[in-house]
């Protein structure tokens, strides 16, 4: 469905015909005013054509010469740019990519194993020792300390105390 603007433009340019033309002209509220505007549009067209179409290009040959120079310059730059791109892309061949990928994976695995070992050093050790330092009752033995050494594999626990005046009956290491 054409808008009014489209129909009006087509009518001014004599592009409407047959049923479309008669329908459009019948829809005009003031045909005389529309015809006046059509005549004005023609005058405008003639004015524009007369005044604007004769803008010459001076130095036509120089224009072409300058363009040829630019094209030659661009053509010289293009192979250099393409060569640069090829040189860069040639380094990353498929075997090199595979090699780089494998090497990266190996380095990753080595680091992963090393980190796991660092986190659980006791499991690698034959003797797991847990040392607890705790003070016993400060009123009875103000400078006393107690340490516990435990070897899980041998199911042995050594209780090491120092500076005790006496060992309370209800003593328990904290």
């Amino acid at each position, binding site marked *: 469905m*054409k*808008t009014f*603007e*489209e129909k*009006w*433009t*087509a009518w*001014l*340019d004599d*592009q409407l015909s047959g049923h479309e033309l008669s329908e459009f002209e019948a829809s005009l509220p003031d045909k005389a005013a529309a015809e006046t*505007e059509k005549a*004005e*549009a023609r*005058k*405008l*067209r*003639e*004015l*524009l*054509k007369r*005044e*604007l*179409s004769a*803008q*010459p*290009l001076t130095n*036509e040959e120089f*224009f*072409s010469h*300058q*363009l*040829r120079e*630019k*094209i*030659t310059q*661009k053509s010289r730059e293009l192979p250099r740019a393409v060569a640069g791109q090829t040189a860069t892309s040639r380094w990353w061949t498929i075997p090199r990519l595979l090699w780089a990928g494998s090497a990266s994976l190996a380095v990753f695995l080595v680091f992963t194993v090393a980190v796991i070992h660092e986190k659980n050093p006791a499991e690698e050790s034959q003797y797991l020792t847990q040392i607890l330092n705790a003070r016993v009752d400060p009123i009875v033995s103000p400078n006393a300390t107690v340490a516990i050494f435990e070897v899980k594999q041998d199911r042995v626990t050594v209780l090491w105390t120092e500076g005790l005046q006496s060992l309370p009956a209800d003593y328990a290491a904290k």
Partner: protein
Amino acid sequence: MQTEATLAQSDVSELDLVKRCQAGDTEAFDKLVTRYRTRVFGMIYNMVHSEQDAWDLAQDSFLKAWKSIGRFRGQSSFYTWIYRIVMNVTIDWLRKKQVKGGGSEFDDAIQLTEIDPASKTVPRTEALPHETMERDEIRARIEKAIAQLSPEQRAVILMKEIEDMQYHEIAEALGCSIGTVMSRLFYARKKLQNLLRDVYENV
């Protein structure tokens, strides 16, 4: 006026030139440039109203055409295809200039009074006949009126009224629908009629 036979002949040779360009023949492209340079320059000049800018934009347009000629498939005429490049380059330039100039460029760029009286490009008024002066004034009025249109309206009015292009050719050159072309023509004509009524009524 070209007959259908000569038109067909020129179309064939034009297609041949395009094919040679696609194979890298710069001489063939030079021939196409020679064929269209004046029309392209004139079209751009009427949109930008500056000889130097029109020259540069025409150079840019042809350079872009050379770079992308490999993509021309011959579905439209070379003439429509080059006009599409010309319009893209020119409308982009006008938009950038409008943004930089805060939007006032379209209305006030053409100020004859701003020309340096000592400039060599100023016409020697004492040597010019009265008719030429009058014509210069008319031309300045037209340019000033066109400067008040949007870049797209300028493009459609110039392609339709000066170049006598068909709606579908303009639509192809601007990459829009035929309806949009007709609508832009409607508003461009209305505006120019308002601005230039006294000119075309009294000439």
